């Protein structure tokens, strides 16, 4: 039984349970829509958490990769008639290649310089998507055909919920395996101290590049799914604000906690929906919640709460 409570198997089972059980309490299509968006954001965050939480490298430009995936799907299926899965794979491969080439120079930067480099990258992608109106429809955006594969069209909130839920569970499973492998341990050594990691024989740059590419590809895949699901995309998906939102989800949920990334994505996707009741005060409250959580729950939601529960159980036993 004890092994079920290992974060690897127990957490994954719990996540699968939540994903499978949620439809029982989701009352209508609106709630499904929010749940699907949570799943898409969570998939990006699980990848981004590898980079930020485990390798200790910040990226303020990941929305750029998400948007590139989305636009690859939109342009290739809409304008060129590609099958959606081929377009999705081409987008992921393209983003993988781009991130691989860019990662070498960018990941040599440290701290705030790395933040600036990735921020610049994201903004350049966003400006290109805005300006190349011939290809992308410019600031007005472009429509995306629905997702068809193996003769079936994914349509309706139930089908999309199942697909996104499955993708999320597979991403979490892959991520947990990666963290629990020699690669994951090397990453954590890099996070602790790059010099010490290098001294013990870890190829620091290679691992940083690897995790950057993995997180970019996951963002691209999630972007493709989002494009087909939403049916319409705009360059706002690549904006600085969106990149910040993704990083905030990771940090809010708890860095170096895969489930924290999922929880963070859920909270920050649901919060703005819940705040629509406050219309005019929406930004004010959102900013205040963000500041408050980071000041008082510095380690993020999941690690802080997990620590509380552990303490409670320990004192209960004693």
């Amino acid at each position, binding site marked *: 039984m004890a092994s079920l409570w290992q974060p690897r198997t127990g957490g994954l089972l719990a996540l699968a349970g939540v994903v499978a059980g949620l439809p029982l309490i989701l009352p209508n299509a609106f709630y499904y829509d929010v749940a699907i968006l949570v799943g898409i954001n969570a998939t990006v965050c699980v990848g981004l958490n590898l980079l930020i939480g485990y390798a200790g490298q910040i990226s303020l430009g990941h929305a750029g990769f998400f948007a590139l995936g989305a636009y690859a799907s939109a342009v290739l299926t809409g304008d060129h008639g590609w099958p959606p899965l081929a377009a999705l794979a081409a987008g992921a491969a393209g983003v993988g290649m781009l991130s691989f080439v860019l990662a070498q120079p960018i990941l040599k930067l440290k701290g705030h310089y790395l933040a600036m*480099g990735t921020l610049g990258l994201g903004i350049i992608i966003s400006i290109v998507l805005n300006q190349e109106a011939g290809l992308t429809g410019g600031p007005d955006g472009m429509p995306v055909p629905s997702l068809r594969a193996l003769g079936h069209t994914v349509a309706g909130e139930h089908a999309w919920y199942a697909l996104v839920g499955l993708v999320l569970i597979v991403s979490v499973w892959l991520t947990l395996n990666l963290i629990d492998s020699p690669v994951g341990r090397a990453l954590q050594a890099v996070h602790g101290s790059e010099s010490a990691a290098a001294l013990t024989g870890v190829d620091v740059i290679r691992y940083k590049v690897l995790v950057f590419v993995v997180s970019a590809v996951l963002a691209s895949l999630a972007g493709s799914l989002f494009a087909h699901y939403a049916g319409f995309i705009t360059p706002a998906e690549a904006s600085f604000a969106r990149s910040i939102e993704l990083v905030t989800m990771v940090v809010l949920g708890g860095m170096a906690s895969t489930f924290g990334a999922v929880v963070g994505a859920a909270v920050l996707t649901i919060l703005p929906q819940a705040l629509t009741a406050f219309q005019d005060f929406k930004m004010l409250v959102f900013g205040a919640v963000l500041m408050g959580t980071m000041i008082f729950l510095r380690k993020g939601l999941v690690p802080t709460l997990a620590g509380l529960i552990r303490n409670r159980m320990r004192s209960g036993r004693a």
Partner: protein
Amino acid sequence: MSADFLQFLFSGITQGACYALVGLGFSIIYNASQVINFAQGEFVMIAGMAAVGLIDAGAPFVLALAAGVALTVVVGVALEKFAIEPARNASVVTLIIITIGASIFLRGAAELLGGRGFRSMPAFSGNEPIVIGGAALLPQSLWVLGVTVVIIFALGRFFNATMHGKAMLATAYNPVMAQLMGINTRLVLSLSFALAALLGGIAGVLIAPLSLTYSTVGVMLGLKGFCAAILGGLGKPMGAIAGGLLVGVSEAMTAGYLSSAYKDAVAFVIILVVLVVLPGGLFGGRSVERV
């Protein structure tokens, strides 16, 4: 020199001076606390919005400008007291998110109080352009440049000839040692936010007549100010000024000769190229990681 070139140069230097003031704010706060304050652009917005609001409400012009800048300084100090100080020793990413939360909060407050519309402020001394070599220079540009030069000299004097300024430099150099020497490093932290807000606020009222003012005016200005600070080497005030002017002029030249659509991308292309070649910025020198 052609009139076109001169025209682009004028507008580039004017814009660059604003980036420099914002970039200086980034550098001053970074020196005192190692924090990158992503709400720096919001200082520019608050001063502009507040001043325009007061002018529209019938306040005397000079008083409205002064009140706008003063309010910005109050907000800057409050930001440090209520958001940064309680989270000291938090990780870099956490601090970045706190200041981003603050910038969203401030933008929300500005929209609530000042609305979402674009508002214009009258120029300080008329809109009659001065023609130099076939290029038109607005009097407001002279104000921007003149005030920026005065600020640079005043800052130089502050840091080198006053006790508070020297205390800030000492804290930037080594916080623990500064504390041992009897410097109140908490006060230095407050002072750095006040100073950064003052610079942002002044930039805000100076640029408002040229660029209109609205609740999101600070977003791009803040990011480009960050570019300026990084370009010159984070924590180096003179570097931030050089970086700001470089970004401003390159932007204006790109808009004039190449493509105005990609004007906003210039700053970020420059920063990526520079960082790849010189990972510590133009004047940053080589940094060695301490183990």
